[in-house]
């Protein structure tokens, strides 16, 4: 029987669908019975989706040109 702590420990595997069917069923059974873990899983899913959309490192043309100049001088 999974504990709430196990739900948190395995939440990335659950989210990324990297669990066997039987483990996924056990996970879902716990969620069915535990509203705290249902809330955690919902919020965890939202926070992962949000952080996936964080802006990437901006690149300036000067940085790209600096590489070109170095390579041209070789």
């Amino acid at each position, binding site marked *: 029987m999974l*504990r*709430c*702590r*196990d739900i*948190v*420990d395995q*939440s*990335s*595997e659950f989210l990324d669908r*990297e669990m066997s069917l039987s483990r996924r069923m056990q996970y879902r059974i716990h969620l069915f019975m535990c509203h*705290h*873990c249902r*809330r*955690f899983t*919902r*919020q*965890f899913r*939202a*926070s*992962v*989706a*949000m*952080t*996936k*959309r*964080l802006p*990437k*490192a*901006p*690149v300036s043309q000067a*940085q*790209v040109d*600096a*590489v*070109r100049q*170095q*390579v*041209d001088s*070789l």
Partner: protein
Amino acid sequence: MDTMSEIYKINIQTQAFEAELLPKLVDGDKASFNRVVEAYYGPMLGLARSIVGEAIADEVVQEAWLSVYKALPKFEGRSSLKTWILRITANEAKSRLRRESRHVSLEAISGGETDVLPGRFQNNGHWSVPPNGWHDESPDALLTNAEMGDCIELTLNRLPELQRAVFNLKELEDFSFEELCNILEISASNARVLLHRARISLYGKIEHFQESGEC
């Protein structure tokens, strides 16, 4: 279009881009090299930042490009060009990190053994401090809060280097575990643990911000 279709489409575009340029690159064609620099500078900078920090990331990327240019004739095509270039970047960044802080261990840059959500569980494994409700749990609503966005970025920058690197490659650059393990030279099980720790740290910070309005 769903996320998987989007990733598939991007992978196909990357393959076509590299297939067109590779023969010219191996022959030392500088115009083709410039196109690759434009395409991959961003992912390299993101990766270098996650390992060595903002201050010297650009320097590391510049050094990595020189290594890439010199090594291109020896590129064997065992991985995609992008994966190969990022692996060179990661190696440059890691050796730079070792030079800067002489006794840095893999354990230290991985974050070691840390408890997820410390103090939140009873001894029997049930919640002692369960999560509270958030004002709005949709990713879009979370994103619209600029202060929280800054707070997340700050938290991300404070994660141990390897956690940040895995997070950057998996979540922001959409690499598969296989590719990111190839780039960072770590095992798949280690990569999964590091990604999970990074996600839980960020979740903990978002939760704290939702409850207190502070970072």
